[in-house]
C-alpha cells in the first residue's frame, strides 16, 4: 500500500474534475435525453407592468410538433401556488405571491406568461410567436426612491405599499456600542456620501436547465442548481409532493455565483407539466431569457455618514440603505442586504453604529444572492468612505485604516455589530501587500505625474477587507429568522477493495470539491488520493445537505468530512486491535496504518475495511461496517481578510481606466489546495473588477432590460485585466479543526472598492470625489471635466454591439 508520505492538504493538486469540465464531456442537465422526452419553452412578458386581458393559445396549439400550450391558470387553476421565500427578515415583511406563470398581471419584463410543450426544442420555440397575449399597461415602477415616493404607483396593489421591509440594527439599542446620532453630533469631522451599487447579472456560464422524469420510481428532477437539497424540500413543500417521492439531482453545473441559489418557477412548472403529461420534460433557457428571468444581484443606494476625530479616530458610522428586491422576493433575496449589516464596520473598531435597510419593490427582475451577497456592498461602502474620510482629514488612507483597525493581539474581537472575529492579522497582510506593490514607489510616481500634468494620471486604491463566510452557525441563522440551519453533512463509505466513497452535502458547481475533499480524506485516513471518489448533488446518494453558497463548503462541509473520517477511524480501531490481538490503547493510527505501539506490527485501514466487509471474525457486538457519517454545525462564521492594492492609470483625455497592477494578500486561514485558492481569487477579482469598470444591468423607462446580451452587458476577458499578483498570509481559524476560512467570495468582495478608490485617487485633484459604477470611460472623462461627481450615462440604452442592430435591417447583406 502507498501511504502518503507528504500530507495531501497543502498540495497544489490539479483538479480531478477539470478534464471533464473543461472539455465539456460530461453530464450537464441540457444534454440529458430520456425516452419520450418533450421540450418546454416559456413565453415571457414583454411588458414590465400590465394586466393580462387575455391569452390566446389556439394558434400555437396548431403549430407543428406542439403537444400542449399551458398558462398559469392551466397549471394552477386555484391560484394557490407561490414560489417560496425562505428569509422573512421581519414579522411584518410584505410578501407578494409569485405564481409559477403570471396570473392576471405581469410585474416585470421577462416574467413567464405561458409554456409551450413540443416534441423538439425548436418546435416549442417556434410556437411561442403564435401565442397572442393582450396586455393592459399599468404604470411602471422603476427606481427605489420613485417607488417610495408618496403617490407612487404600486407594483402589487394588494400590498398597499412598495416597501417590502425595514430592518434595523442599532448598537446603542443592542448594547454593543454607543449612540450613533450622539457620535455624529459630537464629531470633529463628519463625512456623508451616497454610493450606488448598480444592478448586476450573475452571468454563470451554463444557462439554467431542468429535466423532470415522472416515469421513474421517484419523481426525479435534474437541475442546473447550486441547491439540490433545498430545492427538493422546497419543491415538495410548494407542490405538496411527499418529500420521499421526490429525487433531485444536480449533475455537473456550469457555475452559479449565487445565481443558482433559487427555487425556480420554471422548475415547479416542469414538475407540474411532467406530472400532467406523464412524460419526461426538459426546459433549458436561452441566454436572452437568462438575462431577464434569472435573478439579478446588488442594486442598492447607500447613504453613509462617518464621524471621526481630527486625528482620524472613527467615532461612529451610520448606514442607510435602499435595496431593490425587483418585483418579487427570491429564495433568500430579502436577507441579502441584511448580511451587509454585520460587515459595514469591517475590520475597524467603530464605537457607535447604526444600520437601517429598506427593501423596495420595483417592476424589475427580482434580485437575490450574487457572489458575496450583501458583503461586497458593505465592503464597498466602508472602504470608499474611509478614502473619503482620509481625503477630508488630509491623511494617508492606509494610515487612517491602520489607526482604526483591530490589532492582531486583540483577537478574538467582538465587533460593534456583535460578531466575534476569531483571528486575523491585518498588519501582516498589509505589510506584505505594500512590499509586493512597491507602495512608496507608486506614490512617488503619482506625485510626479501630477506635478508635470501628465495626461495619464496614476491612482492607488486600497481595500482592507474582511468578510463573514462559512454560512453559518444555525443558532445565528435562527436569530435572523432564516428558514433553515447552517450545518453540513458528510458520509464515508469504506469499500471492500480499499477504495473510498465520500459523500458530501455541499453541491459543487465548479469549486473543486472532488479534489479538495479527496485531499482531506487522504490525510485523515491515509488512503491514496486516487482511491477516493467524491459523490455529491444527488439526493439519493447524498441524502442530506444544505448545499453550496456563502463560501461555506470547506469551512462547514469540509469539516463534516473530517468528522466523518474521525468516526471511521474510531470504528476501525477496535477491529484493528482484535485483528492484531492487542489492546486498543496500544494502537496508534498514522498514514493509514494502525501500529501496535513499540512494535513493527501493523495493519492498514484497507485491511480493516476488508475484515469488516467479510465480518467473519469481528469483536463481540461490532456491526460489520466502518462507514460513518457526520453533521457539522459551525460555532462561528469564518473571517477571511486581506489587503488589496490597485494601481490605476487614468487617461484624462479619454477617461479610459487601465489597471496597471493589482496586488492582493489574502488570509484565508489554512489552505487545502493553493491552486484552487488561487483560482478562486483570480475569478473573484475578475468579477469584482467587472463591477467597478464594466458590468451594469440597465432598464429603460418602460422597464425593458437594454443590456440584455453580452454585447451590451460587458464581461471582461483576460485581455481586459492585469496580471494579478497574489499572495497569502496564514492566520488559521480557531473555530474549526482544519483552521480554514472561506475563499469563494473574497476576491469579489475586496476588489471593487480597491479599483474605484484607485480611479478616484488618480483624479481627485480635478475635484472629483465620486464616480458612479461602472466607471465607464465617458463617466470618468465627464467627471474630470466637470470636477464633480459624474452622473450616469445620457440614456438608458446599452451601447453599441448587438443592441445597436436594427431589427428591421439586421443581418449580413
Amino acid at each position, binding site marked *: 500500500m502507498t501511504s502518503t508520505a507528504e500530507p495531501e492538504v497543502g498540495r497544489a493538486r490539479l483538479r480531478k474534475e477539470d478534464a471533464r469540465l473543461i472539455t465539456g464531456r460530461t453530464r450537464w442537465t441540457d444534454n440529458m435525453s430520456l425516452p419520450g422526452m418533450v421540450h418546454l419553452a416559456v413565453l415571457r412578458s414583454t411588458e414590465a407592468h400590465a394586466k393580462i386581458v387575455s391569452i390566446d393559445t389556439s394558434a400555437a396549439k396548431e403549430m407543428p410538433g406542439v403537444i400542449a400550450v399551458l398558462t398559469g391558470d392551466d397549471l394552477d387553476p386555484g391560484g394557490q401556488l407561490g414560489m417560496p421565500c425562505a428569509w422573512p427578515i421581519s414579522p411584518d415583511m410584505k410578501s407578494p405571491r409569485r405564481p409559477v406563470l403570471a396570473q392576471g398581471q405581469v410585474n416585470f419584463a421577462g416574467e413567464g406568461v405561458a409554456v409551450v410543450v413540443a416534441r423538439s426544442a425548436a418546435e416549442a420555440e*417556434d410556437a411561442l410567436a403564435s401565442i397572442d397575449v393582450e396586455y393592459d399597461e399599468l404604470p411602471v415602477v422603476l427606481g427605489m426612491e420613485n417607488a417610495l415616493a408618496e403617490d407612487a404607483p404600486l407594483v402589487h396593489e394588494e400590498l398597499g405599499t412598495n416597501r417590502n421591509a425595514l430592518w434595523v440594527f442599532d448598537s446603542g439599542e443592542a448594547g454593543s456600542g454607543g449612540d450613533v446620532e450622539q457620535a455624529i453630533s459630537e464629531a470633529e469631522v463628519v463625512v456623508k456620501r451616497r454610493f450606488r451599487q448598480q444592478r448586476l447579472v450573475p452571468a454563470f456560464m451554463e444557462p439554467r436547465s431542468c429535466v423532470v422524469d415522472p416515469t421513474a420510481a421517484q419523481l426525479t428532477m435534474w437541475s442546473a442548481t447550486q441547491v439540490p437539497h433545498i430545492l427538493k424540500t422546497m419543491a415538495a413543500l410548494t407542490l405538496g409532493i411527499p418529500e420521499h417521492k421526490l429525487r433531485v439531482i444536480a449533475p455537473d453545473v456550469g457555475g452559479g455565483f449565487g445565481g443558482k441559489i433559487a427555487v425556480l418557477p420554471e422548475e415547479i412548472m416542469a414538475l407540474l407539466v411532467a406530472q400532467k403529461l406523464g412524460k419526461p420534460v426538459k426546459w433549458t433557457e436561452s441566454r436572452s431569457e437568462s438575462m431577464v428571468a434569472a435573478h439579478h444581484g446588488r442594486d442598492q443606494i447607500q447613504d453613509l455618514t462617518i464621524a471621526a476625530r481630527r486625528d482620524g479616530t472613527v467615532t461612529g458610522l451610520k448606514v442607510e440603505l435602499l435595496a431593490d428586491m425587483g418585483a418579487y422576493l427570491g429564495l433568500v433575496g430579502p436577507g441579502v442586504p441584511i448580511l451587509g449589516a454585520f460587515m459595514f464596520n469591517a475590520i475597524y473598531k467603530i464605537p457607535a453604529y447604526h444600520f437601517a435597510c429598506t427593501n423596495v419593490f420595483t417592476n424589475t427582475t427580482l434580485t437575490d444572492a450574487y457572489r458575496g451577497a450583501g458583503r461586497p456592498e458593505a465592503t464597498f461602502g466602508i472602504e470608499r468612505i474611509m478614502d473619503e474620510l482620509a481625503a477630508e482629514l488630509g491623511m494617508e488612507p492606509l494610515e487612517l485604516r491602520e489607526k482604526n483597525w483591530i490589532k492582531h493581539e486583540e483577537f478574538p474581537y467582538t465587533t460593534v455589530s456583535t460578531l466575534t472575529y476569531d483571528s486575523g492579522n491585518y498588519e501582516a497582510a498589509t505589510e506584505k501587500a505594500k512590499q509586493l506593490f512597491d507602495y512608496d514607489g507608486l506614490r512617488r510616481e503619482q506625485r510626479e505625474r501630477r506635478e508635470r500634468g501628465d495626461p495619464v494620471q496614476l491612482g492607488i486604491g486600497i481595500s482592507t477587507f474582511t468578510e463573514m463566510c462559512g454560512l453559518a452557525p444555525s443558532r445565528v441563522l435562527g436569530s435572523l429568522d432564516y428558514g433553515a440551519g447552517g450545518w453540513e453533512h458528510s458520509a464515508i463509505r469504506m469499500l471492500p477493495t480499499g477504495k473510498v466513497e465520500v459523500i458530501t452535502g455541499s453541491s459543487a458547481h465548479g469549486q473543486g470539491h472532488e479534489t479538495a475533499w479527496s485531499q482531506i480524506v487522504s490525510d485523515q485516513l491515509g488512503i491514496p488520493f486516487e482511491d477516493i471518489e467524491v459523490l455529491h448533488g444527488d439526493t439519493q446518494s447524498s441524502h442530506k445537505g444544505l448545499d453550496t453558497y456563502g463560501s461555506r463548503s470547506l469551512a462547514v462541509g469540509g469539516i463534516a468530512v473530517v468528522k466523518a473520517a474521525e468516526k471511521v477511524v474510531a470504528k476501525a480501531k477496535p477491529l484493528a486491535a482484535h485483528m492484531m490481538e492487542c489492546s486498543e490503547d496500544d494502537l496508534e493510527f498514522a498514514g493509514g496504518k494502525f501500529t501496535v505501539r513499540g512494535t513493527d506490527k501493523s495493519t492498514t485501514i484497507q485491511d480493516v475495511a476488508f475484515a469488516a466487509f467479510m465480518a467473519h471474525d469481528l469483536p463481540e457486538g461490532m456491526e460489520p461496517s466502518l462507514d460513518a457519517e457526520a453533521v457539522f454545525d459551525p460555532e462561528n462564521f469564518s473571517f477571511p481578510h486581506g489587503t488589496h492594492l490597485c494601481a490605476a492609470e487614468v487617461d484624462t483625455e479619454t477617461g479610459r481606466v487601465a489597471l496597471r497592477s493589482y496586488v492582493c494578500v489574502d488570509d484565508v486561514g489554512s489552505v487545502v489546495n493553493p491552486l484552487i485558492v488561487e483560482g478562486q481569487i483570480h475569478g473573484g477579482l475578475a468579477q469584482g473588477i467587472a463591477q467597478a469598470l464594466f458590468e451594469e444591468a440597465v432598464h429603460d423607462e418602460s422597464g425593458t432590460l437594454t443590456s440584455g446580451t453580452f454585447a*451590451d452587458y460587458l464581461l471582461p476577458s483576460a485581455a481586459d485585466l492585469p496580471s494579478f499578483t497574489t499572495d497569502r498570509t496564514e492566520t488559521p481559524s480557531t473555530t474549526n479543526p482544519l483552521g480554514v476560512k472561506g475563499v469563494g467570495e473574497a476576491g469579489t468582495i475586496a476588489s471593487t472598492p480597491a479599483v474605484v478608490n484607485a480611479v478616484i485617487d488618480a483624479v481627485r485633484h480635478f475635484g472629483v470625489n465620486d464616480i458612479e459604477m461602472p466607471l465607464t470611460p465617458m463617466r470618468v472623462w465627464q467627471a474630470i471635466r466637470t470636477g464633480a461627481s459624474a452622473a450616469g450615462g445620457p440614456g438608458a440604452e446599452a*451601447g*453599441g454591439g*448587438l*443592441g445597436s442592430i436594427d431589427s428591421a*435591417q*439586421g443581418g449580413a*447583406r
Partner: protein
Amino acid sequence: MIPAPFDYVAPSTVDEAVRALVDAGEDAKVIAGGQSLLPVLRMRLAAPTTLVDLGRIAELRGVREDGDALVIGSMTTHYDVQRDPLIGEHAALLARATDTVADPQVRHRGTFGGSIAHADPAGDLLAPALALDAEMLVAGPAGRRTVPAADFFDDFFTTAMSPEEILVEVRVPKHTGWHAHYEKFNRVAQAWSMVAVAATVRTEGGTIAEARVGLTNMASVPVRARGVEQALVGQAATPETIRAAAEHAAEGTNPTVDGNADVEYRQQLARVLTGRAISAAMAG
C-alpha cells in the same frame, strides 16, 4: 436561441448565388461568415425565409494583385487578411484594422466582404476601405458593377447594393510604403468600436505628402476626416502639427448616442484618437 426555420442554399458560383437570391425573393439573406447574422437569427431579430451561403464559391476567396491595386475576394476571412503578405505590403491599414476585429475565433470565421456588406457603422473595416478609396465589385441579375466606397455606404446596415446583389470583391488601390495605424476605442477587448480612427500617411522627406483618415462609428456610415487630411498635407509630422490637424477630426460628424457615449464624448474621442492614430502611424 434557436433561429426560426429557413431554407438553405449553398451555390458554387456567383451566378448561381444571384439566381438563388432572385428565386428566393425579398426575404432571402446572404450568409458569409455568419458572425453578425447568426446572433441576429438566433435572437429572432430577423427571420429570413432563405439563406444563400457564399461559403462554397471558390472565386470569392483570396487576395491577388491587379496592376496598381489589390483585389480582395469578399469571402476572404479576417484571419487571411491579417496574414496576407500583399495586404501587409500594399494596404497595411487593412491589416492593422483587421487585427482589432473581435477575437481569433471570429477572425477565423468572419469575412472581409461580409463585414463591408453588413455595413455596421461600428464595424472596423469600413473606415479603412473608405480611407483607401476602395471600390466594391457587386454582381446582380443585371450583371456586374463597381461602386466606389464613398458611394457604397448609405445608412446604418444599408448599402448601395440591391437585395439581389452580392459583393464579389473589393479593389483597393496600392498604398505601398504608406504609414498606417488603426486606433480603436472600446470598453472590453472583444466589443465593437465606440469610435475608431483609420489613418494612413505618405511622407516625402520629413513632410506629409498625402494623408487619408477614416472614422468608425462617427455617423450612420463611415466618414472621411477631410479637414484632418488637408491640415496634414505639406506639414512636417511634429506632435504640434498632428495635434492641430486632429482638432478637425469631429467636423461634420453626426455620431449616434448610446449608453457608452454621447455626441460630445464621441467627438472628443474622434479628436484624441485621430492624433494618436497619426502619431502611431508615423512611429510604425
